[in-house]
């Protein structure tokens, strides 16, 4: 009881301090902008999608009429398929869903493994001009549009692409490898698309690690493996989780890379959502699919955070 009173009192202090520091006009403006962002850019669009996902896909004339009632049919469709299908479950769509989640997890793990050594190198050799140049070089490819980058990768991974040319020239393979059909191009594209979002949070936390701690551990005889396991990785954990969250969410929700780099037989779950909205003009069905993806990815992220004992607050650091 007493605690709650203190808590609200503290909140009030922060509130009035905010207005005192910024002045009434600026304070209200900032407050209004944050409110606008929260309500109009985050809350309302999601709520309207949520609403859509529970409605029937009716012709415009019947919208708002007696037939426009809430239903679970859109969600049932993902699980059981249409009434006319002979299968017990909607195995096609469910398979795409599971494959998307697993592939997004793989892409995330791959990015962690790739970025950790790089982030460690960048973070611990601080201050040198070479490192700063390296960081700029890492960023430059991201000045190019995402779709163009995906096409560039398609060209590199194509049958007569650069990679196959090199492999054939080096006699590693005699026939061109079909990277597109094997989904290698897709995973490479997804991994590359969001790699900086993994690298920079990791780099930031590792840079803040006191180098004396590493030397102290070394002085006490610790091997490199132990130094990383006991000192560097625990310190870098918030950065790793924060990067992993972003890469996982964005990979699972990516559209451009799967559209351009995906093989003919492989669908990404977002492509199904896209088809419902765009090809079938069934927004209600698409919204239900999108909601399932959103809730599942959030659940996975929260579970992983619980397992690795990371708080929400650490991620924002």
């Amino acid at each position, binding site marked *: 009881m007493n605690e709650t009173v203190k808590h609200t009192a503290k909140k009030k202090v922060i509130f009035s301090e905010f207005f005192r520091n910024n002045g009434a006009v600026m304070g209200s403006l900032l407050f209004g902008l944050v409110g606008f962002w929260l309500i109009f850019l985050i809350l309302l669009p999601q709520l309207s999608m949520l609403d859509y996902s529970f409605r029937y896909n009716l012709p415009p004339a019947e919208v708002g009429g007696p037939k426009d009632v809430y239903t679970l049919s859109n969600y049932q469709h993902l699980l059981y398929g249409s009434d006319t299908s002979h299968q017990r479950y909607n195995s096609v769509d469910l398979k795409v869903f599971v494959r998307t989640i697993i592939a997004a997890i793989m892409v995330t793990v791959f990015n962690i493994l790739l970025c950790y050594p790089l982030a460690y190198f960048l973070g611990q050799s601080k201050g040198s001009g070479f490192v700063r140049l390296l960081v700029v070089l890492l960023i430059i490819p991201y000045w190019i549009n995402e779709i163009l980058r995906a096409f560039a990768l398609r060209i590199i991974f194509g049958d007569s692409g650069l990679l196959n040319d090199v492999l054939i020239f080096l006699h590693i393979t005699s026939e061109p490898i079909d990277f597109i059909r094997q989904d290698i191009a897709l995973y490479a594209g997804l991994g590359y698309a969001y790699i900086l979002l993994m690298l920079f949070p990791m780099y930031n936390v590792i840079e803040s690690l*006191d180098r*004396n*701690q590493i*030397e*102290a*551990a*070394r*002085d*006490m*005889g*610790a*091997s490199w493996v*132990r130094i990383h396991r*006991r*000192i560097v990785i*625990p*310190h870098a954990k918030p950065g790793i989780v924060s990067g992993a969250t972003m890469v996982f969410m964005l990979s699972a929700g990516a559209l451009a890379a799967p559209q351009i780099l995906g093989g003919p037989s492989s669908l990404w779950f977002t492509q199904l959502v896209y088809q419902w909205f765009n090809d079938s003009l069934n927004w209600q069905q698409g919204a239900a699919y999108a909601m399932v993806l959103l809730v599942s990815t959030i659940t996975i992220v929260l579970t992983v955070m619980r397992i690795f004992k990371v708080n929400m607050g650490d991620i924002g650091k």
Partner: protein
Amino acid sequence: MSSGVAVDLENIWIRFGDFVAVREANVSIKGGDFFSFLGPSGCGKTTILRAVSGFLEPSQGQVRIGGKDMAGIGPNKRPTALIFQNLALFPLMKIWENISFSMEVAGASTAERRKRADELLDMIALEGQGDKYPSELSGGQKQRVAIARALCANPDVLLLDEPLSALDLKLRQHMRTELREIQKRVGITFIYITHDQGEALTMSDSVAVMKAGVIDQIDSGHNIYDHPSTPFVASFVGENNVFRGKVKEIKGNDALISTNRSGELLSRITPSQVGKLSVGDDAMMFIRPETLRLGKADASSKTTISADVINEEFEGNSFSVFLKGDGDKSIKMSVPNAGQDHISSRGENLSLHYDATNAVAMPAGELASE
């Protein structure tokens, strides 16, 4: 415990590119000694410590610990433990895990580690604090945990890199005593780096005073203070009044110096420079503020200095009287507080007496910058 292991530095040179950080260092540290390297920041003392701990290989020369050449042996394989200036405790490990980290590395069981950590916590008077995290401890407590962590590995030599510099004055003075006691209890060799002469003098069996990569003097704290061998040591350790001049006469171990401003003054020659000072040489003479006394004017005395008062400061236990001296340097006299209101008034001419045995003369050289 251990009876103490000797550390020898033989002709050590450490270069970074063209910069010579340490020049021809020859030091023999007896086993079980508390040895300090004292010098201003940037004089190369930390570099020497890193060479002993193995984080850095000297460009030339040999580091021997217990008679064994350490060349090519990494910090994790040397019988040394280093305490960092910022302590470098592991913030994400509990105190007991911090302390027993070296045992974890060696593969000891959790029960063994916990037991040893608890023993060490008892020793540093932090019983029952093992389950806290470093951030929950005060500065002095963290300090003691860092010492316990270093001692846990049973090192032969403990290396301390200005570990007290982050503490406030009272705690620093308390920790000096405590460090010295811990050292006596465990009996191992301590090598201590500091720019604080008070720390070096109170704790050490021996002190090496360093200036710009060169060791000027290695001696007991007492000898460093009373018998400095160079003008740098005389002016860096404690407070000192400098008088510049030329040698007029040498009589045994004493020299008569014709000073630039204060007439002819008699002084003993510092022991290490006896025989190296001859008539006509540029010399420097040092008299400590606490050895100057007020006296009567006596023009014929060779141990009386006449000077005008610039100002006076009340220090609590003493008064500091500043008088016009040699060039831009003032002469400082320290008079114990025995209940006087004041000692002098501005502009007053005073005669200061001293004993020739309390003054030291040596060839002129570089002074410590203030």
